[in-house]
């Protein structure tokens, strides 16, 4: 199969405009005859479901939480990028496009990224109209801050709760449609399989998480907006329920998986404190606007941070990257922190942390200003660590945060399984090998509010979609698969909990498929993951009943899928013998430990096709061409 990204013809600034004109339309009166299934109601799914409902489609939406307002988009803190150039500092759609392609280390598709930058301005307008309380200046106009990987101020924010406010905006738009009856919202429902009829995605199999009932839902198209798979690592900044199940089922039903090894490890998280820890908490990248990152010059320095004089501190990001300083992109900052700790200059009890210091900023701007900008983050830090960051520098260390990889999609956000679309973090499309800060919110909302309403209509308008019944044999077969898997999990009756396996899986991934990866380690990881997976299916213990709320069963199903995905992450990481973005192959680095990309051999998207469990998946390549942003070795010096 040759991958066709369906990139429209013409100059880059005209592609989306022309494409929208060429897409088929669906007459407003006919839209209510088409049912669209939306799985996941965070920024991408919630925005898509609301917008499609407004257009007149019949939308059926699912979320595993008890309300659409709880999706993990809510936890995004720092902000959302938009090329408004309200600061008059030389920003433009083209610059945001360029920064994003470069920030992604030239592993993203130019046409998609340009469209994202173009739509960024509409997103801000839309959110303001919904009543999102963005930060304002005294003039009443919108305020901005800076984020990593950019030399302009283009990030819009609502204190340290931007994700929450944008999600509540999308949630309110969705709630309005639910009230109007265009969207049927199913909270506490988990999608467990995709139903394919005549080669097209035509439905889903869903478990009602309260009653345990297995339901069949049919539709003309299915949108997966189920977020990322960072929880494969057990410890991550993701919410506990975030999972790969829907996109993994889609992969097993024929959708290709793009760049699974591109996992973002965020530089500023609160360090791990003990074995009991269940998740890691992010400290927004926006803190690097004012915080300075440093370690003691001396190895194993026992002194308290405030006792270490200025000349004995190494502000290593400012030293190594004078042009961008503390605002280098995330992959660069994370690796630099790891390097300092590996060299014995880490701080705190575990020695696996570096300082993020606000003393200078407080001296310069006053405590009140810092409190206004970051108050809620400082409070959260103090709550968790019992230390006051206004007085002592924060301790931070990298943690798994976001997955650039995901289902492969074409320009229309359609996967290789016709009728199945993927949006937001669930797809692979816009961030290449590294996502810039404040770009996830932008992408989720661009996909949901603006891209899918056009491209999904194009698919429905241009495709003959005969009615399907949930009595079709394909539904029965998919439902049987789901029931069999549940029965299998319940009948193991082993002696180890799901969390036991999940923690072990996470440790393998973090140690061998984490910030530094090498051939030997990746091969070990693959065999260890397989062994542990076998052990899981022999020894896992899932208690309770299937016909009622059962959190152990939910977790077991998700972890079973993480095992299979984890192997694919390692296979992809092993095959990509270059360093790029978040993927650092130790064999491929420069003398001063910078990532060395290999454009000659790896300038492509790796799209993997499922060939059966325990079979090597088949690699398909989408070659990347760069007509506008010429790849160069990324430098932030």
């Amino acid at each position, binding site marked *: 199969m040759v991958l066709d990204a369906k990139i429209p013809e013409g100059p880059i600034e005209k592609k989306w405009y022309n494409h929208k004109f060429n897409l088929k339309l669906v007459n407003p009166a006919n839209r209510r005859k088409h049912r669209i299934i939306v799985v996941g109601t965070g920024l991408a799914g919630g925005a898509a479901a*609301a*917008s499609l409902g*407004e257009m007149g489609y019949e939308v059926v939406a699912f979320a595993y*939480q*008890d*309300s659409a307002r*709880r*999706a*993990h988009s*809510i*936890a995004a803190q720092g902000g959302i990028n938009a090329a*408004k150039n309200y600061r008059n500092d030389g920003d433009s759609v083209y610059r945001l496009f360029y920064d994003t392609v470069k920030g992604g280390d030239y592993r993203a598709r130019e046409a998609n990224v340009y469209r994202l930058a173009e739509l960024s301005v509409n997103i801000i307008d*839309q959110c*303001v*109209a*919904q*009543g999102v*309380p*963005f*930060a*304002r*200046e005294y003039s*009443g*106009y*919108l305020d901005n801050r800076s984020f990593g990987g950019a030399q302009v101020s283009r990030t819009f924010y*609502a*204190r340290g*709760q931007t994700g*929450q406010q944008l999600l509540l905006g999308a*949630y*309110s*738009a969705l*709630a309005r449609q*639910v009230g109007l009856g265009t969207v049927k919202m199913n*909270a506490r429902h988990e999608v467990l399989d995709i139903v394919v009829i005549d080669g097209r995605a035509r439905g889903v199999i869903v478990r009602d998480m309260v009653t345990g009932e297995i339901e069949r839902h049919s539709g003309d198209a299915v949108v997966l907006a189920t977020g990322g798979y960072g929880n494969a690592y057990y410890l991550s900044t993701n*919410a*506990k*329920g975030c999972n790969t199940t829907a996109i993994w089922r889609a992969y097993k039903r024929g959708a290709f998986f793009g760049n699974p090894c591109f996992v973002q490890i965020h530089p500023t998280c609160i360090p791990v*404190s*003990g074995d*009991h820890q*269940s*998740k890691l*908490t*992010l400290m927004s990248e926006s803190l690097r606007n004012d915080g300075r990152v440093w370690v003691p010059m001396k190895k194993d320095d026992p002194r308290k941070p405030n006792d270490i004089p200025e000349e004995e501190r190494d502000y290593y990001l400012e030293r190594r990257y004078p042009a961008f300083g503390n605002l280098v992109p995330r992959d660069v900052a994370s690796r630099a922190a790891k390097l300092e700790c590996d060299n014995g200059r880490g701080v705190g009890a575990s020695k696996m942390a570096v300082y993020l210091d606000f003393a200078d900023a407080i001296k310069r701007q006053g405590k009140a200003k810092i409190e206004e900008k970051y108050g809620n983050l400082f*409070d959260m830090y103090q*709550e*968790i*660590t*019992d230390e006051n960051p206004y007085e002592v520098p924060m301790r931070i260390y990298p943690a798994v945060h976001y997955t650039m990889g995901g289902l492969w999609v074409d320009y229309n956000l359609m996967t290789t399984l016709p009728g199945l679309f993927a949006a937001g973090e669930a797809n692979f499309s816009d961030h290449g090998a590294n996502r810039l800060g404040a770009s996830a919110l932008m992408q989720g909302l661009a996909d949901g509010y*603006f891209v899918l309403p056009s491209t999904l209509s194009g698919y429905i308008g241009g495709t003959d979609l005969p009615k399907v019944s949930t009595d079709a044999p394909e539904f029965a077969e998919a439902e049987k698969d789901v029931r069999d898997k549940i029965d299998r999990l319940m009948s193991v009756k082993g*002696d180890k*909990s799901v969390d*036991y396996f999940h923690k072990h899986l996470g440790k393998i991934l973090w140690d061998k498929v984490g910030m530094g990866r090498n051939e030997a380690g990746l091969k070990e990881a693959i065999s260890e993951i397989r062994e542990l997976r076998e052990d899981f299916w022999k020894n896992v*213990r899932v*208690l309770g009943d299937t016909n*009622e*709320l059962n*959190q*152990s069963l939910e977790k077991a199903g998700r972890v079973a899928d993480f095992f299979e995905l984890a192997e694919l992450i390692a296979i992809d990481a092993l095959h990509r013998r270059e360093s790029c973005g978040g993927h650092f192959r130790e064999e491929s680095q420069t003398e001063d430990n910078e990532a060395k990309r290999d454009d000659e051999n790896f300038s492509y998207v790796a799209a993997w096709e499922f060939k059966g469990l325990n079979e090597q998946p088949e690699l398909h390549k989408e070659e990347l061409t760069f007509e506008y942003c010429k790849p160069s070795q990324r430098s932030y010096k």
Partner: protein
Amino acid sequence: MNFNLKIWRQKNSSTPGKFVDYSVKDIAEDTSFLEMLDILNEELIAKNEEPVAFDHDCREGICGMCSLHISGEPHGPKRKVTACQLFMRSFKDGESITVEPWRAEPFPVIKDCIVDRSAFDRIIQAGGFVSASTGSAPDGNAIPIPKKDADLAMDAASCIGCGACVAACKNSSAMLFVAAKVSHLAHLPQGKVERKERVLNMVAQMDKEGFGSCSNTYACEAECPKGISVAHIGFLNKEYLKASLS
């Protein structure tokens, strides 16, 4: 640290529940309350007993999913935090702790400490929005908003919809939740067009769901993990009165 726990166990909405005693030992003080429950659950699984069901998701205090009534207070003894951000250092070694679900008629128990809060969704569906369909928006800076108003709106908008205000109230009133949304949108020019219908419809839905009346004890503000002020309730009353009279 060691703790004696008294936890509400209830199989489902149609079976009566009861408190069951447990104890946990050697808990590190930087363990979060939910992580302490994780540890208990691991021990229960090892003993072939079904783990305690409780809602949780982001575990960083923003999603509003966690909803535990801890020793008589929603989200526990510490002010302005959710249960997931409550750490065991806030308790005394050897302390007895009761853990139960939100107690309010409009929030029926589903299992153990999990309740159904869909009534909140229905209140928002009744009017907690600005009807700005996708594509219809003017430029973001076309609507200047005084910083003071934007900040006030943001204070109200920071509600996480957890329901602690209802659980804290002896009347199970949802006034703080409704007031926060009404106040957020009424303080912004975008929300002014629909402000009358909004307040009337949201209050009507609130009453229909069976939430009680406000009797100004301010327990809601005291227990709100985001510190949302009862001043918004005063604002809601004013909005409601104005809308009813015009």
